[in-house]
């Protein structure tokens, strides 16, 4: 499981180097929730520059984290999604509620 966290100015950056399917999404969910509850960030940023595959399990995971950030008064952002991941994000309509940036780092 390849996941890295960077904490800076109340921002939690989540770098994932893995194909995100149902198997992996469960693990990401646990680790990210753990970090969010401990650090209480104002913003959580998912960096997808090293994610080469994602299916609908990733969408469910992102919506769940979006809800969690809203609950603690923060926000969620997705950065550096490649073309394969972007197609799934757009198809799901998730881009209407979660900002997707190209290079926000």
């Amino acid at each position, binding site marked *: 499981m390849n996941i890295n966290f960077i904490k800076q100015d109340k921002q939690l950056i989540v770098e994932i180097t893995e194909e995100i*399917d*149902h*198997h992996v*999404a469960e693990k990401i*969910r646990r680790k990210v929730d753990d970090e969010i509850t401990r650090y209480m960030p104002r913003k959580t940023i998912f960096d997808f520059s090293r994610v080469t595959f994602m*299916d*609908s399990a990733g*969408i*469910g*995971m992102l919506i769940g984290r979006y809800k969690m950030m809203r609950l603690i008064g923060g926000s969620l952002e997705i950065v550096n999604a490649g073309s394969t991941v972007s197609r799934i994000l757009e198809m799901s309509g998730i881009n209407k509620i979660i900002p997707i940036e190209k290079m926000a780092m």
Partner: protein
Amino acid sequence: MYDNEMKLEFLSKSSNEAFARITIAAFASQLDPTIEELADIKTAVSEAVTNCIIHGYEDAEGIIKIKARLIKNTIEIEISDTGKGIENVELARKPLYTTKANLERSGMGFTIMESFMDDVEIDSVFGLGTKIIMKKKIKKHLVELKEEEFAGLGGVG
């Protein structure tokens, strides 16, 4: 009648989701698909296999079977389980519909399969299991172009 055929059988463990989609992608690569077409196939297989694990067997142990066939430039993928089956197929196909919202399922599985593949058939018997048959034509644009060229040539002759 088929140009090539393969069968795969494995336990309904979530760690096999990657194994299944990568294996089918490797088989499909014989048709020389584009990177995008290969990603479409991988995603559709991943969705179908995940459905078998979460919905068909509800995380209990079972067997998932995949048959893939190549017919000219089309790949046909059949994914089946002998799990609990789908009570209402019409409802299951609906975008955002899920019976497992507690597991953070997005309800996008069938929508993604239908968007990424040319044809998705759902054959399910409640209590007995589900079989999904998906088809995708590879290099569609190229082939359509060729057919047009042939039609043009025919006109000249």
